[in-house]
C-alpha cells in the first residue's frame, strides 16, 4: 500500500472517532442550550401571565392546556417548599401542525405557585421542546457529511500537496532502483529543501560509496590474484613438461606426473576463466562493431564439426538472416562458442544439437544427458551439475556476464529432454 493511501486510511479511522466524539459533545451542549433558552422564555411568560392574572381573574379559570399553553390550579395553601419554580421535561398529547393525530410530544413545563387575592394557585406553563430523535438524526447526518467533506479534503491535500512534498523521495527511490554496483553510473541525486530527504540522500550515498569501494577492491583483487598466478603456473607447467620429456620413468611415476599436470592445467583454465570474467566486468572489451551472429555461429560449428561427428552428435542449424548485433567480436565469439561447446560435449552419443537463429535471438538446444538443470543456478559461478568435474564451472557465468554487459537476456529452459539456452539480443 502506498504511503499516501496508508496515511489516508489512518487519518480516516482517527477522524471517524474524533468526528463521532465531537457530534456527541455537540449534541449534549446543544440540548443544554435549547433548554436554557426555553426555560428563559417560560420564565418570561410566567411573569407576564401572573401580572395579567392579577387584573383579569378569568384567566385563573383556565385549568387545562386545551386553550393555551398554561393552566391554573387552585391549591389549598402556601406550601413553602413548592414556592420555587420547577422545570420538568415531560410528554404530552399534542397535535402539531401537519400531524393528523395527536401524538406524544416532548414538552418543557414550568410549575410555579403564586398568590392572588389571598388564594394560592399553581401555574403550569408549557413550551414544546425539540424532538431528541430528530435532533440526533439531524446531527448524525451533519456529522456524516462533515466527515465525508473532511476525508475528501484530505485526499485532495494528499494528492496535490503531499505528493508534491514526497516527490523528491520517489525520484530518489527510482534512481536507487536503477543503481547497479560496478556500472559506473552516478549516485542517486535529488534537489530538495527537506532535511529528512537530504539526510536520507547523504546516508544512502555514503553507503553506496562504501559498497562501490568494496566492490572495486574485490574486483581488483580477483584480477590481480589471477594475474599474479599466471607466472608461477607457467613455471610449474613448463618445468613439469621438461621433466617428463627427460623420460626415464616407469609407468606408475609417469601416471602420477600426468595427474599433477592435469591439475595444473585445470588451475590454468580456472585462472584464465576468472581473468576473462574480470575483464568482461571491467569492460576491457570495448570494441563495438556489427557482428553477424550467424557468421560467428558457422565458424564455431566448423570448428566443432569433427569433434561432434566423432561423438556422433548431429548439429542442425536453422537460420533466418544474418542476425547482426552491435558488440565486441571477441565476446560474440566467446558467447556462441561456449554455448556450442557445452551443447556438443554435454551431449549423449547419437544426440543432436539444434540451433535456431531467429530475427532477434538465438536458441541452442541439445539432447540432455540427465534431468533439467536448476534454472536459478546454471549461470552462477562454479556451478557444476552432479559429477561433472573437468569443467571450470565458469563457462556459462562468462556468457551471463557478457549478456549482462550488453543487456541481452540469456535464459535456460528444459523441454522435450533438451537443454535449451536462448539469448535475446536487445540492440539489433
Amino acid at each position, binding site marked *: 500500500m502506498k504511503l499516501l493511501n496508508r496515511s489516508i486510511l489512518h487519518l480516516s479511522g482517527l477522524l471517524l472517532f474524533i468526528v463521532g466524539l465531537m457530534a456527541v459533545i455537540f449534541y449534549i451542549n446543544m440540548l443544554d442550550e435549547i433548554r436554557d433558552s426555553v426555560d428563559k422564555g417560560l420564565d418570561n411568560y410566567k411573569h407576564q401571565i401572573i401580572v395579567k392574572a392579577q387584573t383579569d381573574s378569568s384567566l385563573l379559570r383556565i385549568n387545562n392546556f386545551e386553550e393555551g399553553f398554561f393552566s391554573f390550579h387552585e391549591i389549598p395553601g402556601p406550601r413553602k417548599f413548592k414556592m420555587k419554580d420547577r422545570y420538568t421535561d415531560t410528554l404530552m398529547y399534542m397535535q402539531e401542525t401537519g400531524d393528523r393525530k395527536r401524538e406524544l410530544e416532548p414538552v418543557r413545563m414550568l410549575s410555579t405557585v403564586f398568590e392572588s387575592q389571598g388564594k394560592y394557585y399553581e401555574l403550569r406553563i408549557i413550551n414544546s421542546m425539540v424532538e431528541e430523535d430528530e435532533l440526533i438524526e439531524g446531527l448524525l447526518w451533519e456529522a456524516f457529511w462533515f466527515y465525508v467533506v473532511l476525508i475528501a479534503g484530505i485526499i485532495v491535500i494528499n494528492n496535490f500537496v503531499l505528493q508534491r512534498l514526497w516527490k523528491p523521495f520517489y525520484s530518489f527511490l527510482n534512481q536507487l532502483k536503477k543503481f547497479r554496483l560496478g556500472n559506473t553510473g552516478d549516485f542517486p541525486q535529488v534537489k530538495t529543501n527537506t532535511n529528512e530527504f537530504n539526510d536520507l540522500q547523504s546516508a544512502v550515498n555514503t553507503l553506496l560509496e562504501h559498497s562501490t569501494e568494496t566492490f572495486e577492491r574485490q574486483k581488483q583483487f580477483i584480477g590481480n590474484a589471477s594475474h599474479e598466478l599466471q607466472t608461477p603456473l607457467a613455471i*610449474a607447467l613448463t*618445468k613439469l*613438461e621438461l621433466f617428463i*620429456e627427460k623420460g626415464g620413468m616407469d609407468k606408475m611415476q609417469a601416471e602420477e606426473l*600426468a595427474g599433477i599436470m592435469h591439475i595444473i592445467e585445470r588451475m590454468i583454465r580456472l585462472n584464465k576463466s576468472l*581473468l576473462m570474467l574480470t575483464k568482461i566486468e571491467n569492460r576491457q572489451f570495448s570494441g563495438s562493431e556489427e557482428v553477424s551472429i550467424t557468421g560467428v555461429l558457422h565458424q564455431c560449428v566448423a*570448428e566443432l564439426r*569433427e*569433434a561432434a561427428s566423432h561423438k556422433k552428435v548431429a548439429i542442425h542449424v536453422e537460420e533466418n538472416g544474418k542476425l547482426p548485433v552491435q558488440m565486441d567480436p571477441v565476446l560474440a565469439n566467446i558467447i556462441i562458442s561456449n554455448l556450442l561447446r557445452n551443447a556438443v560435449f554435454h551431449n549423449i552419443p547419437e544426440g543432436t544439437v539444434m540451433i535456431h537463429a531467429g530475427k532477434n535471438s538465438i536458441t541452442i538446444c541439445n539432447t540432455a544427458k540427465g534431468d533439467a538443470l536448476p534454472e536459478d543456478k546454471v549461470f552462477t559461478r562454479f556451478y557444476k551439475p552432479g559429477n561433472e568435474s*573437468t569443467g571450470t564451472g565458469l563457462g556459462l557465468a562468462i556468457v551471463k556476464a557478457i549478456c549482462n554487459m550488453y543487456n541481452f537476456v540469456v535464459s535456460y529452459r528444459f523441454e522435450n529432454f533438451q537443454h535449451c539456452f536462448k539469448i535475446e539480443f536487445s540492440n539489433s
Partner: protein
Amino acid sequence: MKILIIEDEIELQQSIADSLEKEHYVVESAADFHSASEKISMYDYDCILLDIMLPGVSGIQLLEQLKKQGKYGNVIIISAKDSLDDKLTGLQLGADDYLAKPFHIAELNARVKAVLRRKIFEGRNVLELANVSLDLDARLLTVNGERTPINRKEFDVLNYLMLNKNRLVTKSALAEHVWGDNVDQADNFDFIYYQIKNLRKKLQTSQARIEIDAVYGIGYKLTEK
C-alpha cells in the same frame, strides 16, 4: 640460431632456455631492462622472447628501441596480461607474435620456429621431414612426392607435431593448439587420440618415414624412422 630470452622470472627463464637448447639454438638470457637493452644493441638475434612486464619498465620500450635500431620482426612477446591492447601495441611496434602466460613448451617451440622460418626461408612455407612435406599455405600433405588426403584437424595435429619433432607434445598442448583457447572438456583428449590414430594409419599406408609415438599416455612425440 641465436635467441635472447628477456624474462625477469629466473625459473621461467631457465625452463625456456632448457627447452630451446634442446633444439640446438644458442640461447642467451636477460633478467632486467638494462642488460636486455645492452644485449640488444650489441648483438643481433634471430629471435627475441620478450616479457613485456619487466620490473619498473615496460618491455614495450625495448620494442621501440629495436625499431629505432632497425632490427625488425623477430620478437615474440610473452605476457601474463593477455590483453588485446598490449597485443595490438606490441604487434604494431613490430613484434611478430604474442604468447600469453602460462603456455605449453610445445607452443613456445612452434611459435619460435614459425618466426625463424619466416625470417630465413622468406615466404616458402613448407615443413619438410624425411620423405614427408607439409605445405602450410596450401594445406597439403605430400609423402614421397605423392599427395595424401588429410582432413583439417589432422593437418593441424601433424603440423604441430612436426614443428615439435623429437619433442614431447602433451595432449593438452595439442588440444589447446588445435581447438584454440578455453578448452575445458576431457572429451577433447578422446578426440585427439582418435585423430592421432587416423593420422598414424594414413602415414603408414603412404609409407611415410616418420612415426608418432605415445609418451607415457601423457602426450606424443614425432620421430623419424
